[in-house]
């Protein structure tokens, strides 16, 4: 018999064995390098774009925004770059789930679909250590890549925030923030891994990942995020510029009158105040021109008080960490569930 290149060790342990990370790193890299290359190309191309565009935007901010309230600054950041900023942020919303679906879902689904799990899971490594190592390594890599990318994106966004034409709290950019973007990418990857294990086929698993992720982000943005901390309450008509207004309503004589989103506001304003000063756009009141003041001022003259509950801009980092915290906890749970399923599932 020829010499063994890796000598056999005495079988001292029948139970748990540690995961040999360097070996699994090689295995993971060799099997998933195409997916990782895809992630690198996607983030790389976007990074180049953000870098080039960002340089221009920073330059424009330096030349036009002295002070930020100047008309030139408004023209630049509301007009010239406003749409770009919106389009970029909408596009970036899809990046975590693209990474999650295409890097996470096939890890197990492809093995189960092509039958190669019968090869992989009967090697000495054992199936659960194999699964744990692959998922942890890939999760760390995609999360780190997303984290690095989001640093670049916040640099790109600085002039929009500094000029006051966007706030870090806005739904459009909050989950692209420094910490949350990486956490959302991790969550998407974990959803993909579990979907792959449950559905066992690549394409349906990717579709399921996209759908679940979309549901989770929408539910978070619409219902969950505003409750991370108890909102502050004010009857002052003007909020600080960086604050996130959660809801608005009116009271009269200490009793709730109507909410700022309802049609009753429109009717009331129509009754008391000349309609030419305002227009309703998706239920919001906007002032066309100065004149006799805003609808809020008009209503105030008729005994109505406007209340606003809001999250002050100073809470931005707390919110980033809260959101990232529960997303990381969810991801750990999903990956643990995937490993557990692999361990017990009779194939």
């Amino acid at each position, binding site marked *: *018999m020829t010499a*063994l290149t890796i000598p*056999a060790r005495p079988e001292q342990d*029948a139970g748990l064995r540690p995961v040999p990370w360097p*070996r699994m790193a*090689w*295995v993971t890299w060799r099997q998933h390098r195409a997916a990782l290359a895809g992630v690198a190309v996607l983030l790389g191309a976007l990074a180049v774009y953000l870098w080039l565009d960002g340089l221009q935007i920073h330059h424009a901010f330096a030349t036009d925004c002295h002070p930020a309230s100047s008309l030139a600054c408004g023209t630049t950041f509301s007009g010239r770059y406003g749409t770009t900023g919106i389009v970029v942020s909408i596009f970036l919303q899809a990046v975590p789930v693209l990474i999650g679906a295409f890097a996470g879902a096939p890890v197990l689904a492809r093995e189960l679909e092509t039958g190669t799990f019968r090869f992989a899971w009967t*090697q*000495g490594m054992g199936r659960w250590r194999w699964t744990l190592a692959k998922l942890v390594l890939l999760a760390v890599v995609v999360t780190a890549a997303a984290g690095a990318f989001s640093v670049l994106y916040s640099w790109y966004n600085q002039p929009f925030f500094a000029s006051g034409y966007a706030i870090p709290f806005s739904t459009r950019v909050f989950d692209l923030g420094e910490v949350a973007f990486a956490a959302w990418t991790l969550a998407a990857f974990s959803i993909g891994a579990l979907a792959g294990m449950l559905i066992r086929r690549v394409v349906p698993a990717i579709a399921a990942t996209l759908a679940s992720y979309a549901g989770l982000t929408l539910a978070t943005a619409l219902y969950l995020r505003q409750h991370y901390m108890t909102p502050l309450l004010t009857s002052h008509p003007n909020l600080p510029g960086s604050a996130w207004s959660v809801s608005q309503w009116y009271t009269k004589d200490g009793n709730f009158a109507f909410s700022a989103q309802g049609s009753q506001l429109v009717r009331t304003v129509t009754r008391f105040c000349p309609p030419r000063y305002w227009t309703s756009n998706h239920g919001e009141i906007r002032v066309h021109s100065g004149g006799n003041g805003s609808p809020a001022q008009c209503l105030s003259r008729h005994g109505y008080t406007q209340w606003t509950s809001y999250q002050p801009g100073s809470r931005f980092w707390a919110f980033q960490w809260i959101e990232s915290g529960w997303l990381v906890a969810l991801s750990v749970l999903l990956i643990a569930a995937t490993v557990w399923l692999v361990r017990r599932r009779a194939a």
Partner: protein
Amino acid sequence: MNVIEARGLGKRYGSTWALRECAVAIPGGHVAALVGPNGAGKSTLLNLAVGLAAPTTGAITVLGGQAAGSPGALDGVAFVAQDTPLYKNLSVADLLHLTRNLNRRFDQRYARSRLGELGIPVKRKAGQLSGGQQAQLALTLALARRPRLLVLDEPMAMLDPVARHDFMATVMTAMADDGVSVVLSSHVLAELERVADYLILLSQGRVQVAGEVDDLLASHRVLTGPAAETGQQARRLNVVHARQGGAQAHLLVRTDGMADPAPSGWDAHPVSLEELALAYLREPGAGALPGPARGRPAPLESGQPSEVTQ
């Protein structure tokens, strides 16, 4: 040492039992063939033995008492699954390195020299190899782990006769050189005589026949004689399967140490493994198991062969 041992083993998928009340003990040092019709539970038994599936009832151990699928068992058991699934987009060299990284023991030099002898280029992707080469590659990866038990699920199903011969030659060489025990499932009966020296016949999720091939062949005979006397002989003898051709009847009987089973007017012939296996496959009620006779041949009780073909 029993390389595979099971007691009360059952596996249910949904509401269907693929394997039920299966008791089997396969001794080491053999090429043991697991034979049975489709759906008899061959693949299920092997999947349970390599830890891919977990039993619904009972227990299965490998290599002298290690739980199937436990770390110790995985170290000592190599499995080549049906259709030899491999990562088709990886090169042969990558697959060697991958398998090496997934195991504590891996004999890279053996693997390289085997592939060299077989003329399998290490730079080629696994998916570009022929079916026979892929099977040989899967077998080489398994053997380079230096297992004590090699489990092969339908290794010959997809191969042409030459590839079959080469594949089994590799298995036999490994067995002779390293003393690896082999358990393989197959429904290519004709091939088995050359390779198998232990036979387990599964039928409807139960073990019907188990024993060393030499013992089984020594304890069975084909008797040829007048068809009219078939019923009379069946009452006296342990008939597994009866076949009638014109005035002649061919009875496959279990002799159980009888010195001369042939009555006057009848001839006794040795039986081939294929004939023996076929006879039992056609008579799911008959059985031949080691130890105290657990399965009594059905025709003996009824007094009539249960199948008589013209």
